[in-house]
C-alpha cells in the first residue's frame, strides 16, 4: 500500500516538475511579453498544484497536508491575480502585443 502511495506521490511530483520546467522554458523562449505570460502562468498554476499534491500524498493525513493544501490554494488564487495585474500594468504603460499593429517605435505613453 505504502509503495503504491510512494509511486503516486513520485509520479505527481515528477509530472509537476515537467510542467514547471516547460513553463520556465516557455517564459524564456516565447517571442514577446504577452506570450511569455502564457508560459509563466503554467509554472504558476499546474506545476505547483501537482508538486504540492504529490507532497501531500507523501505526507498523508496530517497537519502538514493541511498546510500544503493552504499553500496550494493560495498559489492558485494569487498567481492568476498577479498575472492579471502584470498584463494590465504592461498594457496601461503602452506595451503593445507583437503582431497586432506592429510598429518599431518606442511604446508611446499617454501624454
Amino acid at each position: 500500500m505504502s509503495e503504491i502511495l510512494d509511486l503516486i506521490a513520485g509520479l505527481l511530483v515528477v509530472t509537476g516538475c515537467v510542467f514547471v520546467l516547460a513553463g520556465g522554458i516557455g517564459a524564456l523562449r516565447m517571442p514577446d511579453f504577452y506570450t511569455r505570460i502564457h508560459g509563466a502562468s503554467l509554472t504558476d498554476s499546474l506545476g505547483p498544484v501537482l508538486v504540492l499534491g504529490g507532497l501531500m500524498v507523501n505526507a498523508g493525513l496530517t497537519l502538514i497536508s493541511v498546510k500544503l493544501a493552504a499553500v496550494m490554494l493560495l498559489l492558485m488564487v494569487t498567481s492568476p491575480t498577479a498575472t492579471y495585474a502584470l498584463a494590465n500594468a504592461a498594457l496601461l504603460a503602452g506595451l503593445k502585443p507583437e503582431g497586432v499593429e506592429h510598429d518599431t517605435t518606442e511604446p508611446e505613453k499617454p501624454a
Partner: protein
Amino acid sequence: MTMLLIGVFLLSLLVITAIAIVRSEDLFSAVMLSGIFSLLMALNFFLLDAADVALTEAAVGAGVATVLLLAGLRLIPPKEAPGRPLRALSVTVIAATALLMIYASFGQPTLGDPLAPTQQHIAPWYIEKTPELIDIPNIVTAVLSSFRGYDTLGEVFVVLTAGIGVMFLLGGGRGKPFSRLDSQAEQGLSGHLIPKVMARLLIPFILLFALFIQFHGEYSPGGGFQAGAIFVAGIILYSLVRGEGLALSVIPPRALLLMSAGGALLFGSVGVAGMLMGGNFLEYSVLAENPVIGQHIGIIVIELGVGLTVTGVLLSIFHAFAARD
C-alpha cells in the same frame, strides 16, 4: 552534500543578481531585480538553518521593501543618468580588497564546522539553558527577547527613530500630505475588479497569519518583527486596492503614531516593571511567582511591543511616501 551544492548554486545566482542590480540603468528594473535578490537571500538563509531569519526576510523583502521602493521611485526620475566611465583606480582597489578577503577566507573554519570558535562560546549555554530557564521551544525567540533583551530594545528604538526621521522629512501625521486624500487619484486599484475581490478575500488571512506569527513565535519561527512586517503587508495591500483614504480611515495616522511610540514604551515599561518588582532592568523572572512563568509573560508582552512598533513605523513610512505628490 546535496544541500551544499544547492547552496552553491543559489549563491551563484545571488552574485549574478547583485551584478545585474548594479549594472541596470533603469531604476524600476533595479527594484525588480532586488526583489529577486531578496528571494534568493531568504532561500539561502533557509538552507543555512536560519528559519526565523528566512521568515523575516520573506516578510520584509517580499511585501514591504518592494512597495516602499516603488512608492519612493514614483517621486523621482526613473532613469539613471549615463554614468562616468569605470575609474581604473576604484576598480583596482575593489578587486584587490576582494582578493584579499578571499585569501583571508582560507584561514576561516569551513561552513558548518562544529569546532569553529563561534560555536564554542555562549551559544552552547543558550541552547542548554533555554529549556530550563525559559522553557520555550524557539531558542531564537528566547535569546531575542530575554537573554539579549537590551539589544532588542535598542533595535526597536532604532526602528522608531528611523520612522520619526522619515516623518520629519516627508511630513507624516496630519496636515498637508494627507490633504490629497479626497482627490480623484486616490482610488487605488478600485477600478480593477479581480485584484479588488482577491484582496478582499486574502487580507483577512494575511492579518490572521500575522497574528499567528506574533503569538506563536515562541513555538515556531516567528515573533514581533516578522508579524509586524506581515501585518503591514496586509494593510498595504488594502491601501493599494482600495485607496489610501480608506486605509487611513481604518487605522488613522494618529493611531499609527500611538502604536509606534506605545510599542517601544511597552517594551521599556516591562523593563521598569521588573525593576519595581525587585529585579534588574528587563529581568522577567520576577514578574510572577514562578520565574519561568514570569519569563513567559515578559516575552509575550515585549513581543507585542515589538510588533506594534514595527507595524506602526513601517505603515507610517508607507503612508508618508504614498501621500507625497
